[in-house]
């Protein structure tokens, strides 16, 4: 068989069918010539009465009918000996021809689209599997015990179960779309995992809404307005425009994928339904605090390693790092985070309009952050750097006073140093500490 010829070999079948047909035709001719024609030619010599006797012979009549059958076989065999509608194998032949064309098309490079769709499907599956494996690997790669403890706390499991949890979480994911849509749900709007649902399920806001129709109206109104924008994914566009994917945010995203694994394992509901479920009602706040806490920790780490925070004493450097890191965190707060944080802070001050005023102020802060980073990043940077420099100067001032106040005070500052000996350790346990401030 030549390359590029893929049909089933039917030639032998046609040839044999044809041979049989020829033999049948021969037989028909023999019967006609040697028997029936001779009978009909010589029947005239007989007496009229004998004619009817001969015509009644069974061999004669059966020969006639058998001849009919033979003719039918002849036609059938004729059809079998060549391609066409009459051939009983026609269905097989047509399908075979179709396949042959497709295969030869692929061999000749004509039908690439078929091939590429198959290949891209395979690619997707490979990508998904890779994502799953890297996810499990990521969990496994966290060796720092405090990191593992934080993760486990958030997920409500024992640190030792983390790896097996990760494997279970990814086994539920069947398509790449599921993976990304979960991440999208987490990251559009705020970029830090705070969604409107989280906002609504914040204890303070929930209570306020139950108590007062007014608060409910104000808040739903305020949330409706940006929600219309949220659907346009404007935040993601803006962050793209501003091109500000900091390393901190990168790690926060990985962190989010950890949490999204938890989301997925929830009985296959759609992400949105799940966000409204009781599971998130309890977990959403922790998620929000944790993501903010992690970013805070990262910002503080980067502030710590920056020379700007250098100080006469370690205590001074710790103080500057915390202040600087906090300012960095605030400078990245989006509208939703702002509203959420504002509501938290306002509620904690214990005044009648704290939640509402805090929410409005937070919304404004987030919007200013968002717009300045899109419109004028230089301006934004200068504002926050100005605040930072002022705060560092204040720390220096306090430090000077403390140093001049004598050795006793310096010693107490050194004890602060031992508390803040490892900034990362301090803040890895920080998510819980921070949340208890406001709780």
């Amino acid at each position, binding site marked *: 068989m030549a390359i590029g010829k893929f049909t089933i070999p039917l030639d032998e079948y046609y040839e044999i069918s044809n041979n049989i047909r020829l033999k049948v035709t021969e037989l028909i001719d023999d019967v006609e010539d040697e028997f029936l024609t001779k009978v009909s030619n010589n029947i005239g010599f007989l007496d009229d009465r004998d004619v009817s006797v001969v015509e009644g012979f069974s061999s004669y009549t059966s020969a006639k009918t058998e001849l009919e059958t033979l003719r039918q076989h002849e036609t059938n065999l004729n059809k079998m000996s060549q391609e066409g509608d009459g051939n009983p194998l026609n269905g097989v032949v047509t399908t075979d021809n179709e396949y042959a064309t497709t295969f030869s098309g692929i061999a000749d490079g004509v039908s690439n689209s078929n091939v590429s769709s198959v290949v891209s499907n395979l690619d997707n599956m490979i990508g998904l599997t890779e994502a799953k494996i890297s996810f499990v690997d990521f969990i496994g790669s966290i060796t720092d015990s405090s990191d593992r403890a934080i993760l486990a706390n958030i997920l409500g499991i024992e640190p030792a179960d983390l790896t097996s949890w990760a494997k279970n979480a990814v086994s539920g994911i069947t398509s790449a779309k599921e993976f990304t849509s979960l991440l999208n749900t987490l990251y559009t709007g705020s970029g830090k995992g705070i969604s409107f649902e989280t906002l609504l399920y914040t204890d303070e806001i929930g209570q306020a809404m139950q*108590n*007062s*129709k*007014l*608060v409910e*109206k*104000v808040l*739903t*109104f*305020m949330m*409706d*307005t940006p929600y*219309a924008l949220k659907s346009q994914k404007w935040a993601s*566009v*803006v962050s793209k*425009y501003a091109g500000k994917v900091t390393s901190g945010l990168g790690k926060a995203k990985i962190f989010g994928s950890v949490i999204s694994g938890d989301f997925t394992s929830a009985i296959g509901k759609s992400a949105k339904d799940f966000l409204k479920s009781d599971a998130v009602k309890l977990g959403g706040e922790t998620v929000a605090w944790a993501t903010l806490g992690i970013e805070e920790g990262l910002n503080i780490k980067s502030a710590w390693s920056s020379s700007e925070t250098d100080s006469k004493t370690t205590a001074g450097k710790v103080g500057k790092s915390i202040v600087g890191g906090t300012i960095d965190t605030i400078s990245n707060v989006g509208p939703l985070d702002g509203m959420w944080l*504002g509501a938290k*802070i*306002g509620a*904690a*001050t*214990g*005044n*009648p*309009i*704290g939640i*509402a*005023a*805090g929410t*409005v*102020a*937070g919304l*404004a*802060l987030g*919007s*200013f952050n*968002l*717009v*300045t980073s*899109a*419109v*004028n990043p230089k*301006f934004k940077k200068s*504002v926050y750097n100005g605040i930072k420099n002022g705060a560092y100067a204040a720390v220096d001032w306090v430090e000077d006073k403390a140093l001049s106040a004598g050795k006793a005070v310096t010693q107490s500052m050194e004890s602060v140093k031992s508390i803040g000996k490892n900034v990362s350790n301090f803040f890895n346990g920080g998510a819980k500490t921070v949340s208890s*401030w*406001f709780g």
Partner: protein
Amino acid sequence: MDELQRVSEEAITSSKKIRLWTAIIIGPIYICMLLFIPLYGIKFGEAVSQQERTLLTNFEYSLTIPNSVLGYLFLIFWIVYFINYLVSNRNHIKAYIYNGIWSGLLTLIAYYQFIVAFQFFVPLLIIRIFYWFLFVLSLIYIFYIIFTDTNFSTSIFQKVDTKILTNALLILWGISAILNLLISGFENLLAKLLLAAFPVAPLIFIFIFTNIYQSLISTLKSLFIINKNQEKYRQEFGYSVKDWYGKKSKMYKESLKNK
């Protein structure tokens, strides 16, 4: 009666929340939020208005509160909040009243500063005047409900369909964006779209702040009624002396002595 009971419960739970660390950490953060976030807006507005040449009149520039004044206000408000903290352990209801007035004044400054900030983004003088007019109107309305006895507990929000309001604001934003683009060209498209939200923002802020004040004033009025005759309401709502007044209150100490 129901309203009074709700308010007194709210007052007691809120006042109990105030601890020393609230006064030291959360209080100043809250004050900072309300004083300096609008200032951030004002600085940003100044930068934008210079760039876009929607220059305001000198008079309008002079309307902003000077930074040094804001610094002193911050200290004053912090000290007052500390006093609130001290009161909160001694008389929950009174502390809640002080806290309400404190927050009301603080929010008033923020309200004013926000309006000033957003004016920087409004290119047309006539619209700026219109916004000032609305702002003054809202202040007059707030003072009106303070000094009249009528109960204004039903808010404007309950009379307005918020969905219509949302849509109206989005449409206004759209108009503002289109005008902005027509006037100053199509470069920096996204930035202009986002900026176009700010000229519309005063409408939302005036609306929301008016409502916040309305709710604050109706709460405060109920609190004054309760405060005049605290003992009567304490017994009526069935609170213990310790729960109603607080651990360090005179009344609680006296009640311990009497036992």
